[in-house]
């Protein structure tokens, strides 16, 4: 039977101790080192805990290993509950702001964050501000690298304010959503790197937040950000190859972002139905920082 010829096991999991080896081996500024320290602390916690801490503590940065998804707009809390119970999911991407954010977010409130993190969810906050100046159809940052750097800092401040307004701790990680296309000229690549540098440096200012960058692993030239000084603390790479392992990212060196510093969006928009609720989601595997009430290891396949 054809249907029986297409099975795909998504993977079981078991507790695993997180490694603590330092990863992105390059010179760091002091603020960036602080960001790395946060990651390493999270890594320690990941080794000690395999279940989310059901508590009403302020959700903060913890290493999360497991499957997740994101949707253009934050689902209702009841929909989130339906996607929690007996599902592979434990991480959810949320678009917390930015001028180029595609969807409005009527559900995304401080109360929503409290409710879903108490349920056990880990959250990946994404910020969709101005985009690469070579990309049409969006608001852009400047092609001038000095200006782009400053704009990156400004966006980081706004993202931080959004995190706090949503009730997340000051050490919460946040990801800049950098759409991929159009970054194929030297001018635009340099401007984008400068912008991301400003984003990273500003988030590294105390109280530091781990800085992330989301883009297409190849078309977004994700690996180029590894040569920033310092580079973003972690990456969220998009490649819809269906391979869940965060170690498998085309066009990204395996020697970069190796210490629980990767999330991977491995499938694009599709419908999934769990417990009677259907959402249109992208699929993600996490092996890096997320906002939660505790560390969680839900799927070793994501490593």
């Amino acid at each position, binding site marked *: 039977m054809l*249907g029986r010829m297409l099975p795909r096991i*998504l993977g079981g999991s078991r507790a695993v101790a997180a490694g603590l080896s330092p990863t992105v081996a390059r010179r760091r500024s002091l603020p960036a080192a602080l960001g790395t320290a946060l990651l390493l602390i999270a890594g320690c916690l990941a080794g000690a805990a395999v279940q989310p801490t059901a508590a009403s503590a302020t959700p903060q940065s913890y290493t999360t290993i497991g499957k997740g998804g994101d949707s253009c707009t934050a689902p209702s809390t009841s929909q989130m509950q339906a996607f929690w119970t007996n599902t592979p999911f434990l991480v959810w991407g949320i678009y917390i702001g930015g001028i180029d954010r595609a969807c409005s977010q009527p559900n995304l409130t401080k109360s929503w964050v409290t409710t879903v993190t108490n349920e056990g969810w880990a959250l990946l906050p994404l910020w969709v501000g101005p985009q690469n100046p070579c*990309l049409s159809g969006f608001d852009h940052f400047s092609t001038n690298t000095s200006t782009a750097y400053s704009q990156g800092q400004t966006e980081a401040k706004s993202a931080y304010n959004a995190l706090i307004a949503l009730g997340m701790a000051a050490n919460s990680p946040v990801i800049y959503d950098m759409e991929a296309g*159009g970054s194929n000229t030297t001018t635009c690549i340099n401007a984008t790197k400068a912008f991301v540098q400003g984003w990273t440096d500003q988030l590294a200012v105390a109280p530091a937040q781990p800085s992330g960058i989301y883009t297409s692993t190849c078309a977004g030239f994700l690996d180029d950000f590894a040569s920033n000084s310092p580079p973003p603390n972690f990456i969220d790479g998009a*490649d819809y190859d269906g391979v869940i392992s965060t170690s498998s990212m085309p066009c990204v060196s395996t020697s970069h972002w190796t210490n629980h510093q990767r999330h991977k969006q491995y499938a694009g928009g599709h419908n999934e139905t769990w417990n009677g609720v259907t959402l249109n989601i992208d699929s993600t595997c996490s092996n890096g920082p997320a906002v939660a009430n505790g560390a969680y290891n839900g*799927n070793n396949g994501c490593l």
Partner: protein
Amino acid sequence: MTIATLRGSVLALLGIAALAGCSSHSTHPPAGSAAGDTVVGAPAGFVPAAAVVSGAGHALLVDAHDAALVSTDAGAHWTSLRLPGKPAAGDSVVVAGDRVTAVTVDAAGMRLQRSTDGGRSWQASPVPLTIPTDQAQLAVSPDGGRLAVLATVRGTANDGDSPQLYVQDAGGRLVARQAPAGGQLAWDGSRLLLTGGPLRTRLYASPDAGRTWVPVPVGGAVAPRFGVDPAAPSIGQPLAGAVGVTVPVTEHAGAAAVQLYTGTPGALVPGVRVPLASRLGSGVLAPVAAAGPSEIVVAEPGSSTLHLVTGHSQVTVHPVGLPGPVDALSFADAEHGVAQVTVRSCTGKQDCAESPEVLATSDGGRSWHHTG
């Protein structure tokens, strides 16, 4: 009824595609076509790594070595198809008798491949991408005279897909055009239609093969480009029907429903409304397929229930043999259809399984069986 492609939702596997793009194809196996053996059911020993159901009863299976099987009769017969390379992710293969068109990718980039002898020989031409990608949709008109390729960049689904559009000119060359959004293309005569944008809330029409685009209102104002209301309805792929185009729109706010609009872009009027029992999040599209000149099949996104619409009447059926919600659906005629279903289950957060299956029906969707 001039629309080029009838298409169900694209499957969410690796995403190859078979799109036959023709509204007047035989339901019998294309004897002597596609350069391979035609057999009843999927041949033994073929282990598909990906499958796509689309078009009018069309399905494509591709194995890990890029060998392909194609069916143009809703899975009753399968023919081996020797593609000249790895098909691009997305709706990238069109089969219409002996005429086969495909978009392939290799180390040198993306290529448009054409065959007029069922895949025995091919003519290749480069798709001049400005941003490298291996994801593309191919839209071919029923007569094969019009062709467009929409390449998109992976990982930008939330906000635009960075579309790169190429349209074949009179000389057979691919010419770059500006696409207003990523999404799904379809030919409606000489008009090119595109559905997409955030939450798939936009329908665009181009009267001049992609040189200019106009957003088309469907049942209300055109959705904004940013900050889209999650309650906004999602616009599905236009379908050919007895009277012009039928555009299925999935409504999520309040009681979910699929509202069918018919007419021509710019003059679409509401027709049958199909209530859904499913609990839907924003951006969910119900799979919809044409099953004849005046028949439409709507699949509940959250269950195996189907709604059969004929003219102004509708019947809800609870099919036998469908193991879960349909991902994609396609009918060759009112009786013969093919569907892809992905069965998912978990115990806690561990030991989860996902099983995509391809099934066929020969009684209008009331009962289904695995192909092969």
